[in-house]
Structures are given as structure tokens and as C-alpha cells.
């Protein structure tokens, strides 16, 4: 028999926490993006684990859609970073405060 699902859930929670911590503490936008990918992957792992535990393929279909949305998000996000860099010559979150109310 395979490893119990709760272990996978604990691992996914730890990965999600590390990713969230990274988004909060890092200032480089590229690394913040990577931490975002980390969080998405932690959720994917949770979905696959529940898919196995509940014996339902819907969880894996959810992961499939998350993958597509993540790819689209990275394409648009990196396009934004490139266009920001063209004007400001730097990509740290502290320098981008033009939207501050």
C-alpha cells in the first residue's frame, strides 16, 4: 500500500507555507513569481492527493486546469515584468509604488 494521504497533505501545506513566506519577504519580483508557482504546485499536490483518497478523477482534472492557468499567468506576468523593466531599469517590489493610493 502507498504512503497515507495525510503525509502528502502535510507536505503540501509545508510547501504552500514556504511559498507564501517567500512572497512576503522577498523583494525581487521574479523570485516572488517563483514562490507563487511553489504555492500553485502545493495546491496541485493537494488536489492529486484528494483525487487518490476519494477515488475521483475530478481532482486531477482540476490540476490540469491549474496548469493551463499557471502557464497563462506566467506569460502575462513576465510580459509585465519586461515592460516595467524597460521603463524603470529595475525589478524590485519596493520601487513600484505608482499604484499606491
Amino acid at each position, binding site marked *: *500500500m502507498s504512503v497515507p494521504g495525510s503525509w502528502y497533505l502535510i507536505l503540501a501545506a509545508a510547501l504552500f507555507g514556504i511559498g507564501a513566506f517567500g512572497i512576503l519577504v522577498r523583494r525581487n519580483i521574479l523570485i516572488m513569481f517563483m514562490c507563487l508557482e511553489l504555492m500553485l504546485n502545493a495546491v496541485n499536490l493537494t488536489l492529486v492527493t484528494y483525487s487518490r483518497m476519494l477515488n475521483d478523477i475530478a481532482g486531477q482534472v482540476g490540476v490540469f486546469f491549474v496548469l493551463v492557468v499557471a502557464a497563462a499567468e506566467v506569460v502575462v506576468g513576465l510580459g509585465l515584468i519586461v515592460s516595467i523593466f524597460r521603463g524603470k531599469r529595475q525589478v524590485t517590489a519596493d520601487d513600484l509604488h505608482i499604484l499606491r493610493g
Partner: protein
Amino acid sequence: MLAVVTMPDLVTFIAAALAALVGAVGVVTLRHPVHAALMLVMTLFAIAVLFVEQGAQFLAAVQVIVYAGAIVVLFLFVIMLLGVDKRESIMPKNAVTWQLPIGLLFVIAILIELSILTKGVWATGTHSVTAAVNGVSNIAVLARAVFTTYLLPFEATSVLLVVAVLGAVVLSRIPRASTSEELALEMESDAKEEVELG
């Protein structure tokens, strides 16, 4: 609970979980963006291993192809394009000395491992990636769900991808003279330059 877990499953889970956690901590703590991206690759591979371990073979393959193959390459591409990697050149001045034999050692070890894996099934417990799991292929089950129950979301993702591609093109292209007046002005100045040059 531990008693029913077979040894290969346990070893695979612990190794993959350790790799995922080390990679995640590396993404957060390493200062250099390229190093962080490589750590991200390690975490993504470990998660792909965990997918295989849970019988989601198709998603594991897609995980490696889309994430490690496309998304991380895109990250690295942008890092190189923006020149954020200035603190380190590709070939450092004091050339690789002790790293080279270690790297070769790892390459040989991976080759041996791969050749063993192609021979038998003792390590993973399954025959091949496309083999049937519990009598039914994972890909067949997933495909049936995607193309019947979830057909509308599937079609919506194609729209989303087109929108994302258009958005990336619009965002990252260099703005040119957009109105016809600006275009006319530009052409005029070009003509003047040509006259001056001639």
C-alpha cells in the same frame, strides 16, 4: 499505519518530499535568481515524482514538460534578458576544478540508474508510464473526464491561452507611433533625414 506501507513507496516518498522541501527553502533563501530558478526545478521534479507515486502519470509528465520545460525556461530567459544575473558570469574566472569530477560522477550514476530502471519494475512497481493503473489507464480516465464532463472549461482554457498570448504581445512590444498624425510626422522626419544625408 506504517506497517502496511511498502518499503519502495516509503523511500520514494521520503526522498521526493525532502527534495521538494529543500528546493522550496532554496527558492526562498537563495539570493541569486538563477539559483532560485534551478531550486524551483528541483521542487517541481520532486512533485512530479509524488504525482507518479499517487497514480497520476499523465499529470507528472505534463508537470515536467510544462513547468520544468516551459515555465522555468521562460523564467531563466527573462532573468538573462533583464541582466539581473550580473553577479555571476557563465564561466567564472577560477574555472571549475573539483566540480567537474563530481558532476561526471553524478552523470554516470544517473545513467546506471536509468539503465536499471528500464530493465525492471522493482523500483516503481509499475511497468511503464502509460500502463494501466487498477485496470484502467490513467490517461484514458482523465481524457474521458476532460472531454465529457469538463468540456466547457476545457474550451474556455483555449480562449484563456489566446488572451494570454495576445496580452503578452501587447505588453512587451515597444510602443510605436500609433495615430496617423504621428505616423505622418515620423515619415516627414525620415524624409528630411534622407535629404540631409543625400
